[in-house]
């Protein structure tokens, strides 16, 4: 089951409706010199009028504001206020494991992740930020929602269990949102975070899990198989595995938290049987706070 772009968009709209437009926090704005829609109080590339100034030699004739210049003897140039939007790159895992849902009534994790990504993009776009999928151009404006919806649903799942973002795609002046289940190999996390730290890029890691993965409600003889079929574990006493599994899961989370904190990132997790608004509020807080 996969959602059409329009459906995904409608659901994301509903999920993000309760949040006001998100403008990334001012503190980071000043640090990163990558503001949102706020003017920079200096001339530069932008849309709003900033000042008239006398034309300087070598100024291109195109820049001269002829209407203003006609009122005096001097040629004036119309400067616009410098505006740069910070871009947010969102990455959603396409691993086979994301197609998992423990109950036919629950959405697969992948769809929940896409929903969260798009809802977050909407909130950000409403705040005038530039948003894009990691590795694709970040843009602003309402049309970007559609492009992102198509991009998210159009992602071709990889045929292995694990999927990792390419560290090369990280750019300066970017914030990253990484959504995955972090259940498979996680070496890439360290690589990504170290490169991001080097570039001064901050971000968020969000782990999306199915309740069955959180609680491990199995017992008896069970042959566990990964969704791609590459991995399997045959157990004769699944109930006895529960504590060990939960412990390993907690260890994984601790490790991720430590990694994130070390890089100035945030780590959060989300269950698909909880409303998506919880995760979205958390993302909103973390990114906007």
């Amino acid at each position: 089951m996969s959602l059409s772009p329009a459906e995904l968009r409608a659901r994301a709209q509903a999920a993000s409706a309760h949040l006001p437009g998100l403008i990334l926090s001012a503190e980071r704005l000043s640090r990163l010199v990558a503001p949102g829609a706020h003017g920079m109080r200096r001339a530069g590339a932008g849309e709003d009028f900033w000042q008239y100034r006398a034309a300087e030699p070598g100024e291109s004739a195109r820049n001269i504001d002829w209407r203003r210049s006609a009122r005096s003897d001097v040629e004036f140039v119309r400067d616009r206020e410098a505006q740069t939007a910070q871009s947010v790159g969102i990455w959603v895992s396409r691993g086979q494991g994301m197609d998992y849902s423990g109950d036919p009534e629950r959405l697969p994790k992948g769809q929940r992740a896409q929903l969260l990504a798009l809802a977050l993009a909407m909130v950000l776009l409403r705040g005038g930020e530039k948003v894009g999928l990691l590795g694709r151009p970040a843009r602003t404006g309402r049309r970007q929602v559609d492009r992102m919806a198509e991009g998210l649903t159009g992602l071709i799942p990889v045929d292995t269990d694990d999927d990792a973002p390419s560290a090369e795609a990280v750019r300066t002046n970017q914030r990253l949102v990484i959504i995955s289940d972090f259940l498979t190999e996680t070496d890439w996390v360290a690589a990504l975070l170290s490169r991001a730290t080097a570039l001064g890029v901050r971000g968020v890691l969000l782990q999306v899990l199915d309740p069955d993965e959180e609680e491990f409600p199995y017992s008896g003889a069970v042959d566990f198989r990964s969704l791609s079929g590459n991995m399997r574990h045959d157990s004769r006493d699944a109930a006895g595995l529960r504590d060990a599994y939960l412990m390993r899961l907690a260890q994984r989370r601790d490790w991720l938290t430590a990694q994130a904190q070390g890089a100035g990132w945030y780590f959060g997790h989300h269950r698909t049987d909880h409303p998506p608004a919880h995760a979205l509020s958390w993302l909103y807080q973390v990114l906007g706070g």
Partner: protein
Amino acid sequence: MLVLGPLGFALPWILTALAALPVLWVILRAMPPAPKQVLFPGVALLRGLLDRMPLAQRTPWWLLLIRMLAIAALILAFSGPVWKPVIERQGSGPMLIVMDAGWAAAPDWASRQSRAERALSDAAAAGRPAALLIADGQAQAGALEFAAADSLLAGLRAAAPVSWSPTLPENPAAALANQPAGELQTLWLSDGMEHANRPEWLAELTSRGPVSVVAQGHPLRALTLQAGDTPVLTLTASDAHPPAILAIGPDPQGIERELARLEPTEGATQDGVTRSPAQIDLPPELRNRISRFQIEGESHAGAVVLADERIKRRKVGLVGDPDRQAEGQQLLSQLHYLRSALGPTSDVVEGGLGDVLDSAPDAIIVVDQVDMPEVGELAEWVDQGGLLIRFAGPRMAADEELVDEPLIPVALRQGGRDIGGALSWGDPRGLAPFAADGVFAGLTAPEEVAVRAQLMAQPSPDLAGRTMASLSDNTPLVTRERLGEGQVVLFHVTANAEWSNLPLSGLFVEMLNRLVATARVTPSQERADSRETPFWNAEMVLDGFGREHPAEGLAPVPAADMAKGPGPDRPAGIYAAEERRVALNAGTEFRLASWPGAQVQSAQVLPGRDLKGLLLAAAAALLVLDVLGSALVAAGGGRWRRGGGGAAAGAVLLAMLALRPDSALAQEINPELIRAADEVALAYVLTGDDRIDETSREGLEGLSRILRQRSSVEPGEPVAIDPDNDDLSMLTFLYWPITDTQAPPSPQAYLRLNHFLRSGGMILFDTRDGDLTGVGGPDMSQSLRDLAAPLDIPPLAPLPDDHVLTRTFYLLEDFPGRWHGNPVWAEAPPADAELQDGMPFRQLNDGVSPVIIGGNSWAEAWAVDQNGYPAFPMGTGFDGEQQREMAYRFGVNLIMYVLTGNYKSDQVHVPALLDRLRVEEELGP
């Protein structure tokens, strides 16, 4: 054959396979249940984990047990198990099998057949000659042929029990003349009843060799009917606990079903046979429908009594003055009370005396008639056994030759007497208690029954003997005399409430029913020898099992044979001759047979029961259990139980849904109709044509407005009626526009409409074609005829000028609607109504015409739109408006007529009033 206690095995060597069971146990036990396949993304986290307590790798013991039992059942099933097998004792001489093949053998016919078959096959295996005597009375005369036993099997299998008592050939020695040498071994499959020639046969057979008798396996029961005034069923049974008797017949829907259960009373036991009588004490309307009585749970012809004329209800002829047409006079009619009293319990025929006599009634009631023209035929009819009931009345009292009137039980004084009238002393007389031994014994006269007038009998010595009921002063009220085989009964009062209030009481009904019940119903046997019906033809016959079959290929039965009961050429069934139907019933009262000198076997031990099928079924059931159990084990509980629980809950829910009684069938009264009854709303019939229905609504709305303005009738919003679904009993007036596309209402709707008309409702039929009629084109008259044909509509006539409709509110001469000049039809006035002197109109009292028919399209003339403006144009200019006003006036008159009836016609004093007005005018200023 291996026999272990009551159990025998045909193939004992297969039982050795049971030894393999323990091995199987071990093998099966070691097989673990399959693990569950689960897709799980977090497998990476599970890598390298070890099971702390691995699941038991053994099949649960109960699953093993189920499998073991299934296999054991299979092994046992194939080893040919037989419960209580029969080991036959074999002789060497010839073999004779006697089978009683009457109805009493029918219930366990199959086991009798198989018993005989086994004996024959054994005889065939031993090479003994055998003979088969089937005692159904159809055996060929002459000596029995002894032949190879297996050649008799076909004849045995083809034999079926018959619906009469079994009969053996008369001369046993002659029948056994062909017996081969040797000791004759006899197997007698008896039905337990004593019947003709049986002792002779038993004596002959015991003298020739051993006789073993297989006795009846279950109690014998037979049902017989004693006809008479109160027919009684007798249940003859060989046990003391007779079951109920079912009365079976078509219910009102025509479906055969159990109509009643009769419980036989405690019976008398003699020689092991119990006879329990059961009164057919049923309401006559039920009794009349019964087509057969049957002992519950018995399936043979002897348990069935087919119903014929003997238990049907009586046919009563009513002779009196024909009723007058109008509704109000019903309560004055003498016949009305008789009809009401007899209708539920008897078939009532009305007409002239000659017609009634031709219909061959059981009783004739003649109401206040003297000098009857067909009195000779009537006397002859009474002489042959008819019951004549006469009622007194004013005409009889006034007859001067009453003393000479024939067919009167006692001599009467002319004139009668009045008691408690305005000009007489004394109070009205009550009734004396009824004689304890008479026809009316046991009835109690209500105290309020009083007689104000009666015909007096001449005192005579035999008066007391002829009196059946008398008043408190010992003057006779009901007298009876037997004439020939019949009787004549006279009520000394009228059959209506004029002379006494007896006809108003329930006592009247009971007295009449008692009297009619004494009417002799002609039993078939008595008429059987009459020359008109020398032969009876079978219409339906019963086989030995009591099942009905059409009669085919049966010769007509001479009347003389009918009295002998059923036999080989006249099986039990219904026989008809002309109009009459007579049942020949197989059941007889029987005696139990005794078997001196014979060895009696019990029927129960005979068949060894083959257990193979049972065991195979058990194995299959166990295997199904095993599948379920395996699924349970494989699911490992948890999820499966959740899903299974859901499914089970769903199934239970579905079952409950299926069992939920259909409450939607409960009848609900349309709230619109309740409102209509509250507000005297006018109603119209929906035609299915939206435009016409809307016009009807607007028209009645317009008329309701006018009524509210001008009269004290204040109707509410008009009501739309669908005669198929709506109850009409709360309405008074229906407007019914006729269209040619209207579907006729259902039969139920017509029943309701007729009831509506009879109970004082009125329908105004409007063909709406006043502009078309008379020019020869197509009009609605055919549609009207089609729609109204099933309605109870009296003779119609164009409205006469003096009809009360012309003056119920306005004085009208014409009844225009949107069109005018067309005749309007209503119930025709009585033919004898005449104009009296000094009266402006005829006295046409009583009776509101149930229908008014016309084509003036009244609704269109009355119709107003939402704003109160006329919806249809009429005529031209002022003339048109004048016509509309007249249409409204007709409407007002019509509703007044519906609501007040002929109140306006009741003005007998009009001439006097007019005179007085004239005088006052002259005296005035």
